[in-house]
């Protein structure tokens, strides 16, 4: 890199201490990533049970996964629910973040904390509370009830990413547009909305993943034969540990990885360091 750095940085001398530091961090990274790599190995290993070391490469588990209606139905339900959650949480969360950042609301920090609270409270309790409410209301366990439950825990992600973008951009751009004669509506649609779009979309991608991988909220809200993929996998794993689970896992992981790449392209991952 040729650009000068803002602070004078001493080049770290390479000695035993530095080597230990780097080795330690390398091991920790391996701890984070190895389990995911191992799932791939088992997804491709043709033996009927999970066994190590692998003896070959085959796609039989992927075949089993895509040929088992129990799995594919669950996959389609999960994708459908996550798609609905994506749309709902973009609209609701994006609007909410705008109101929080630009609405001149009293008690703003309290409201922000309130809208973030589904992330901090036990998700299994959100599921339990909704299960009991649906029970009292006598509505059974409809799919829309599951979608609303997922939306509730996905919206905070959209609010967070959108707020991050709103904090970073210069309000004077909006003011300049207003001074130049644009009506507030026009400023909103032609300046504000395009500027926050990356944040809203990034949040939407998170929302999709949160819903697609959701377990604790779904647990009490799904009906037999109408379970989402994580619930089906969980029930299967209690009795059987074979390559089909690994293949199913790989399908989810590939989905997640492609999402990370999309995120990186959209606004760069650095924005997420600020939790």
């Amino acid at each position: 890199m040729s650009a000068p750095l803002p602070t004078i940085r001493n080049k770290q001398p390479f000695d035993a201490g530095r080597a230990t530091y780097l080795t330690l961090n390398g091991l920790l990274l391996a701890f984070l990533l190895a389990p995911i790599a191992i799932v791939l190995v088992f997804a491709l290993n043709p033996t009927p049970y999970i066994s190590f070391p692998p003896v070959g490469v085959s796609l039989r588990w992927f075949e089993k996964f895509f040929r088992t209606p129990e799995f594919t139905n669950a996959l389609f339900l999960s994708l459908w629910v996550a798609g609905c959650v994506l749309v709902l949480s973009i609209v609701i969360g994006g609007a909410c973040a705008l109101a929080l950042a630009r609405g001149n609301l009293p008690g703003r920090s309290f409201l922000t904390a309130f809208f973030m609270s589904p992330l901090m409270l036990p998700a299994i309790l959100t599921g339990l509370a909704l299960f009991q409410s649906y029970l009292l209301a006598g509505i059974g366990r409809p799919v829309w009830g599951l979608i609303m439950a997922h939306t509730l825990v996905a919206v905070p992600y959209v609010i967070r990413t959108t707020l991050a973008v709103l904090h970073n951009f210069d309000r004077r751009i909006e003011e300049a547009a207003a001074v130049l004669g644009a009506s507030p509506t026009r400023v909103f649609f032609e300046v504000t909305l395009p500027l926050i779009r990356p944040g809203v979309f990034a949040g939407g991608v998170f929302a999709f993943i949160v819903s697609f991988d959701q377990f604790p909220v779904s647990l009490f809200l799904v009906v037999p034969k109408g379970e989402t993929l994580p619930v089906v996998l969980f029930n299967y794993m209690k009795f059987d540990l074979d390559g089909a689970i690994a293949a199913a896992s790989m399908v989810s992981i590939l989905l997640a990885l492609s999402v990370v790449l999309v995120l990186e392209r959209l606004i760069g991952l650095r924005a997420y360091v600020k939790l």
Partner: protein
Amino acid sequence: MAVASRPSPIAWLLAPALLLFVLFFVLPFGVMAMMSFYSGNPVTNPNAFLTTRHYERFVFDTAGIYHDALWSTLRIGLITTIVSLLIGYPLAHWMARMQSRLGHALVLMAVIAPMLTGIVVRTFAWMTILQDKGVINTLLIDWGIVSKPLPLMYNEFGTVVALVHIYVPFMVLTLTGVIGRIDERLEQAARSLGAGRLRAFVEVTLPLSLPGILAGSLLVFALSISAYVTPSLMGGTDVLTLPMLIAQQVGTSFNPNFAGALGVVLLLVSLAIVVAYNRILARLSGEQGLA
């Protein structure tokens, strides 16, 4: 900045989110609290009456399992938090001080990628690694280091290992933000005054990152005491936590009222943590505003 005046029309955009949160969050938690004081479903069963017996059942614990479950939930949460801190701190420090943008992006991706992989999938990964015929035991036996498989799973150890893997990214991200904000020149000053690298870290950077340590620890603790998937798959018959007990009451005993009471207990513990976490975050952003 101008003093906050009347809310602008944009404030109306809050309405959909507010409606969602009232209907599907505030109200349901109210229903849960209410159900915990009823003997049955008050809508369908006209004989349902108000009672504190679910709480008495928990407090007096004649079955001798509820206190143990609460204690093991807190213990597993605490151990997971401490281990996550020990593992997360070096990674966060490395990331915060990394000078190459590419390196930073790669490490960040490595930290976030597991986060985007579902908990069920990651628990499965650890089962394949830690079970009797799993990766570690197979290798240890093949190399002749042990003669029979080590009990790495179906106990608290396996549960904690998998939980740490699942929640350590939250610790890393929280800490990276805080460590990154500490002026590196403070440490350099300490070193130019003769402190060794370790001493400069222990006496300058570590104390300054204390708010991040607290915030990250509270976050990981809150997440791990509410974990259900991992303890129930990795814990075997050895581990019974509060969330597992709640699921049992709903699924097999069909006693949603007692489940509600257990839920309220777990909720109170979590709320205490959330309040502390928000206090620390508020203080952190206050300091940032002054800087």
